[in-house]
C-alpha cells in the first residue's frame, strides 16, 4: 500500500484512523467488547469485519470512493502482484498469481503463445458483413 505508484501511501494514516473509528462505532452499535491491546478493526472477528466492510463498500457511505480505492490496491496486490515485476513474482510463487493461474512466460522472460487457437470455424458469420469484416 506504500508502493509509490499506488498513490495511497500519504492517505493511509487517515484511512486507518477512519476505519478504526468506524470499527469502534460498529462495536458500540452491536454491543461488541473490543480488545484494547489491538486496533479496533483488528479486534473485530472476521465475520464482524466483513459486515462492517459491506456497510462501507456497498452502501451509500460518503467515503465509499476512498475505501473502494483502498480495496482496489488490495486486489491489485493479490491478483496482479502490482508491487513486483510479474516475472519475479511468478518465479517467487506469488500466492495471488498462482491462485488465479496466471500463465508463465517463456524462458527468456517474455510471453508468447504459439498455441493460442482452436484453429477451426466455430460459428457461421453474419450475412451482413463486409469483405473486410465489419458490419454493414
Amino acid at each position: 500500500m506504500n508502493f509509490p505508484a499506488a498513490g495511497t501511501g500519504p492517505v493511509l494514516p487517515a484511512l486507518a484512523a477512519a476505519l478504526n473509528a468506524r470499527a469502534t462505532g460498529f462495536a458500540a452499535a452491536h454491543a461488541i467488547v473490543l480488545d484494547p491491546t489491538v486496533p479496533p478493526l483488528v479486534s473485530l472477528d472476521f465475520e464482524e469485519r466483513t459486515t462492517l466492510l459491506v456497510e462501507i463498500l456497498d452502501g451509500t457511505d460518503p467515503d465509499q470512493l476512498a475505501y473502494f480505492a483502498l480495496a482496489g490496491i488490495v486486489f491489485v496486490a493479490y491478483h496482479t502482484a502490482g508491487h513486483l515485476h510479474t516475472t519475479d513474482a511468478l518465479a517467487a510463487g506469488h500466492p495471488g498469481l498462482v491462485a488465479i493461474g496466471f500463465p508463465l512466460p517463456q524462458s527468456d522472460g517474455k510471453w508468447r503463445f504459439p498455441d493460442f487457437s482452436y484453429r477451426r470455424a466455430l460459428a457461421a458469420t453474419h450475412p451482413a458483413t463486409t469483405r473486410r469484416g465489419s458490419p454493414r
Partner: protein
Amino acid sequence: MAAVETADVVVIGTGFGGAIPAYYLSAAGARVVMLERGPRFATEDFTQDLRLDTYTRIVDLIQCSGVSVVAGNCVGGGSVVYFAASLRAPSFVFERRGTLGRRLWPAAITRRSLDKYYTRVERVLPVAQQAWDDVSYAGGLWAAACARAGHTCNPLPVAVDLRQCTSCNWMLNGCVFGAKRSMLLNYLPAAETCATEIRPLHEVQAIAPATTTGYRYAVEYNQLSASDYRIPTGTGSIEAKIVVLAAGAMGTPVILQRSAAFLGAMPAAVGRYFSPNGDHVTLGVFDEAKVRDLLGLERAPGTPYGAYAIGRPITTASYDYLDPGLPEFSRFSLEQIYFPPIVNILAEDGVDGPPVWFGVDKRTLGTRFPSWLTVLAMTEDANEGVFGPPPPTGNFIRASVAAGLGQLSYPTAPETQRGWDESDDAVRAIVEKDGLARHLLWKGGGNAYSAHPLSSCRIGDDPATSACDDGHELRGHPGLFVTDGAAVPTSLCVNPSLTIAALAERASTLLLRRAGDYGLSLRAQVPPPGRSDPVRRRRCRHPV
C-alpha cells in the same frame, strides 16, 4: 522580452485524432507542433509487466460520478494501449436520433460517405482480417457458445501485423513486438518526416487569443515531470493560425471550458452529451466439462479451455443485435474481450448475499480465472454525460501518477439502462444455455466502466446540441477544430478507433481545402502515408 513562439498549426494530443491531421497538414506544407501530455515511448520501451509503475505510465484511470474511464496518456494516445479491434460502425448508427428525436450526426456524414475514409485508414494502419486460425481460444469459445445458442459470430478485423504478433495478450502495456499498429508506426513517423515536432510531457491548460499579427490562438501549456505527472516543471505558450484539439473526449472539453475565460463563451454542447460508447462488460465463468461435452472443444488432452489469458484480447464478436430493424437503444455488438487481472475487483462473486464483489467467495471465483470469458457489449446510450467545472490544471485531479478524480457525471438514463439490460439478457442466454457457464455482472464500485469515451464536443448540424459544425470547427471560434473522440456524435455499437480515425481523415481533407481561410498556403491534396520516407520527404515543403 523573449520572442513569442509561433507555429502554423498546434495539434493538442497525439492519438488517432491528432496524429492524422498532423500528418496531412505538415505534408501539405504547414509548420506543425504537437503537444502531448503523456511521455514518449517506443516499442523497445514497453514491457510485459503488471507492476504498477510500468503500464500505468501510459494509461490513466479516471474515476467520475457514475462512470470510470480508461484513457491513453502517451505519445500515440489511445492507439498505444488499445486492443486494436478495427471495425466500421454499422450504417444505422449514423441515422441515430437518440432521445432528442432528430438525427444526431451531420447530414453530410453517412456510413456510405465515410466509407472512403475508412478504407484509407484501413490501408494506412493497416487493418488485417483475422481468419479462424487467428482467433484466440477465448474467441473460439465465444463463437462456439454463440453458435450453439443459434447466433452467428465473426472473427474480427484488427490493426495488427499478424505475422509479427505472438498472441502474448499484453496490449494494454503497449506492444513489445511492434505488431500492434499504433500511431507510433504510421501517421506519427510520417508527420515527423515532414518536420512535425512532437513535444511529450506538455499538458495544455487553455487556449487564449494570440498577440502576434497573423496568428489567431495562443496555446498555453505546463511541462510535466516524467516521473510524476502531478509535478509541473515549466510553462510555455505557442501561437498558431490553426489549433487542432485532439486531447481525447476526457481532455478536449476541459481545455475548452478553461479557455472560455480568454476566448469568450463556448458552445453549450462543450462538455455535454458525453457517451461511454455504451460499454458494458459482463463475465462468463465456464464449466470446463461442458465446454468439452456441449461444444466439443479441447485445446490439449484433458483441457477443454482454461485459456482466458492466452491470445489476442479481442478476436470475435456477434453482430446479431446490430439489426437496423431493432428499436434504438436495443442494438449492440457482443464482443469477446480479455482484461488483465487489474480489473478482477469488479465482478460479482456469484454467491447470493453480501458481500457482493469481495470476500471469501470472490477469492474462490479468482481461482476460476482461466475459465473466465468476458464479453463487451457496446450499446446505444443517451449521451447523458456532463462535465462539471474544470480542475485547476489538467483534465482531472491526479491522486496518483495514473489515477484520479474527474469532473464528469454520468447519471444513467433509462434508455441506456435498457440497452445494458437487454445485452445482459442476450449474453446470459448464450453462456448459461444448458449450464455451459455462469453469467456474472461487474458490480464492484457501482460505476459503469468505459475505455471508449466519446461525444463531449460533438459535431452536428444543430448548434444547440453540437459543439462543432460538420467540418469539425468549434462554433464561434474559427480556426479551432476538434478531431478526436470528443467529436463523435453518438456511441457507435463497435470499438470507436476506426471511426475516430476515419472522421479525422475526413476533417483533414476539409481542413486542407480551407487552409487559405486561416492565412496558410498549403497543398490542397496530400496522399496518405505509406510510401517510403524519401518519397515523403520530396512531397513535404519542410523536409527534415
